[in-house]
């Protein structure tokens, strides 16, 4: 299906495709850092915070968001294919292309960091 003009749904898909993967990674990174910092200190012992469990949960959540965003970018890229760079469709195709770059890249970081943080022993000093 080719898009003729932007609408609310296409704009939402487009921006989800562009912003979803980096935000998913940022969430995994910041919360994962927080969970490991809390979990490996007295607070973690008192409140039973397990950094490995948190890492697994965060990786699944962030991975799903990034994969869904990648799918959204694929849809938008196909819907906005055009030789003409004129806005708004030319700009939308450009953003969808960015989404195609961002999705796999951040999915890779999410899995790479997540697997390590899940599998490695929790609170051993590096």
């Amino acid at each position, binding site marked *: 299906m080719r898009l003729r003009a932007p609408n609310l749904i296409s704009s939402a898909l487009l921006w989800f495709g562009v912003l979803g993967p980096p935000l998913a990674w940022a969430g995994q990174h910041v919360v994962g*850092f927080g969970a490991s*910092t809390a979990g490996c200190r007295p607070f973690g012992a008192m409140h039973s915070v397990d950094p*490995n469990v948190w890492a697994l949960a965060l990786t699944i959540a962030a991975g799903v968001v990034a994969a869904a965003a990648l799918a959204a970018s694929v849809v938008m890229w196909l819907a906005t294919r055009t030789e003409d760079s004129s806005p*708004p469709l030319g700009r939308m195709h450009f953003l969808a292309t960015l989404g195609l770059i961002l999705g796999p890249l951040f999915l890779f970081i999410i899995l790479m*960091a997540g697997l390590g943080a899940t599998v490695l022993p929790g609170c051993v*000093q*590096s």
Partner: protein
Amino acid sequence: MAIGVTTPEARRRIGRLERIWEEPSGLVGWLTTTDHKRIGLLYFFTTLLFFGAGGVEALLLRTQLIGPDRGLLSPETYNQLFTMHGITMVFLVVVPMSTGAFGNYLLPLMIGARDMAFPRMNAASYWIFLAAGLFIYTGLFLGTAPDAGWFDYVPLAEKDFTPSAGIDFYALGLIFIGVSTTVAAINFIVTIFKLRAPGMSLNRMPLFCYAFLAVSFALVFALPPLNTALVFLELDRLLGFHFYDVALGGSPLLWQHLFWIFGHPEVYIIILPAFGIATSIIPAFARRRMVAYPFVAIAEVLVAFIGFGVWAHHMFAVGLATVTAVYFAAASLIIVIPSAIQLFAWITTLVAGRPRFATPLLWIVGFIIFFIVGGLSGIMFAAIPFDQQAHDTYFVVAHFHFVIFGAAMFPLLGGIYYWFPKVTGRMYYERLGQASFWLSFVGATMTFFPMHIVGLLGMPRRVYTYESGLGWSGYNLAETIGSYLLGLGLLLVVVNLVVSRFRGRLAGDDPFAGGTLEWATSSPPPEYNYAVIPTVTSAYPMWDREDRLQDERRLSEGVMTLEEGHETAGTTVLDSDLDEILEMPSESWSPVLVAATLTCVFALVLTKHYAVAGGFLLLTFVALAAWHWHEPGARWAEQRRSALPNGLWGIYLLIATEGALFGCLIATYFYLRFQATAWPLGGIEPPNVVVPLVLAGALAATSLPMLGSSLAAQAGRARLAWGLILTALVVQTGYFAYEIHSFANDLAGFRPEENAYGSMYYTLLGADHAHVFVGLLLDLWLLGRLVGGLTQYRVTAVRAVAWYWHFANVMTLLVVGTILSAAA
């Protein structure tokens, strides 16, 4: 091809524009200028002077290390010099030269604008930068320069271990510079968002602009952690707080986290403008467009973004938990990908084009080589075991000099040659230019490459001398010889430019057949930049011949010449559709005045005259109010705009940076709490829950009248807007008065000097109260302005202040929630 002036009609219009945009001449002109080009030149010459100072410091350090057991410098002097060298090059040279000088001069030209979005703010950022630079150097001239390294680790930097005022010059000076840099970053973002030429949609924006957009966003979010760390340090040093005192619940690692959350993005802040310059020079000299435009555009943004997630790789040696370090190791390895995308794109563009290796391109080729070497050694530090071995050795010094000098300064030098004809109207001397490159390239390689080897041989960084017989002497000798060669090469650059300025042949408007818009105007550009606002249909508008011919026709016809006042075109953010005609402020004394009063504030804090400093801070607010007395004219009000006004973008970005500041404060609270076995520390009673919650709720409710005032102002109902603001002000003042009373009562119970909990409690609340206080001042200012009725400017002001209060209210709820969590 540049726009030609072919008809009498066109000449008449140009004469009119010249009269409108003319600024005073002489010293007054330079002091009051708001012209982005003159401000760019002010930045350039100031940073050049600091570059000279930093260079002399480097040569003194290298001379001291030329051989073992040398005594040219005492250990104390050596410490001060290497610290000043680092501070100077990072904060006073590379960043302000790239953003302040190159960004200011070129960015509006490249996007077809007549000035920056906030011209007076632009001038203020320069004067504040100058004052802050001199403030830091005052310490050196007084013999108390900072001496704990550019990253100033605690506890060494704490009062107990470094009682001299050098650290205070460092901390206050960097906060001072931070004001300038934040203001400049916000200005760049709004300029790129709102002042692009019609047609320059996101997919047609020059890659240079993507680099500067990425840098500016990085600055907006990177400076708050640094400022938080510096404020904590000064509170520890000047008022006896305990943020970094492990004995009383603080943490020295807190400094490292906060500093490197800033510090690593800072590396990309330093290098991204260089990427932008490379992506401008390479297409011009390869005579083809950059390959993989979307990939390069997003790679520039990605480098800045992922750069925020790698900070702890500077801390792999401190004993972080493996599970923590893994997140950072992954990000540090992956950040190679966007960097490599750009490298491949530059190289492929050169290979696929017909490159002409003139001086600017030579510097870029040198940059690519240095970036590959510095980048590869950077990846090595992402591997935790290697990092722990090479930590604090000369290998690290080698790595970051390859990146910061080779990869950041070389493109700046290439850029100086590239845009010299545009700025001066004259060509540089090519052979002298090439000689300066080769001398600098050989000198830099000779200086920095052997540092890898001595680092691996075990030479630690920051030692003022070393013993003979360790196998380091030959390498150090070579490094010192290299540094003098490098100095000579850089001196040749200066000589070339000075001589060319007066004796170089005339350059014409577009001597390199560049692809971006700055080559469309005359060399040097007139004060109004463009006689007609250009229209753009690709990322390389100068190579779209028909579009430029169209500009000539429109000049004759008076289409988009905007000659009724000091005006430029405002466009929409995504697609750059023409949206409004903006009246731009002209020359003003206000920026200098604001910088002067702020200087007094910092100087008085340094000398511990806090009450007088507070008085000068209020004076700064008065100066800011006077600054905003003049409002843009009626032509603006007649426009029908669909996009957000510049003022609102400005307040959103201010909110973003202030939000990051509160994020750092709240994160610090929990960081300290996580390491405590009991919270609050030291038997302090947990806070009362009910009253603060009710009060915070009452304050949050004032968002409703503020929202109402915003809607009323947009509907043209001035009196209703005024009444709603007054209603909100009454509640906000009541809240503030009670909170100050409560703050004083709390102080009678426990003090911030008691332990880290006390320090955190009062700092968090104090930051929130300060924001509420500023909101009250804004309310009063607004009420005063609305007495005279509504204008478009005042409507935007009401909306902006309403947004400020929404933000302050949310922050109050978060702060109160954080503090009350101690009672849970």
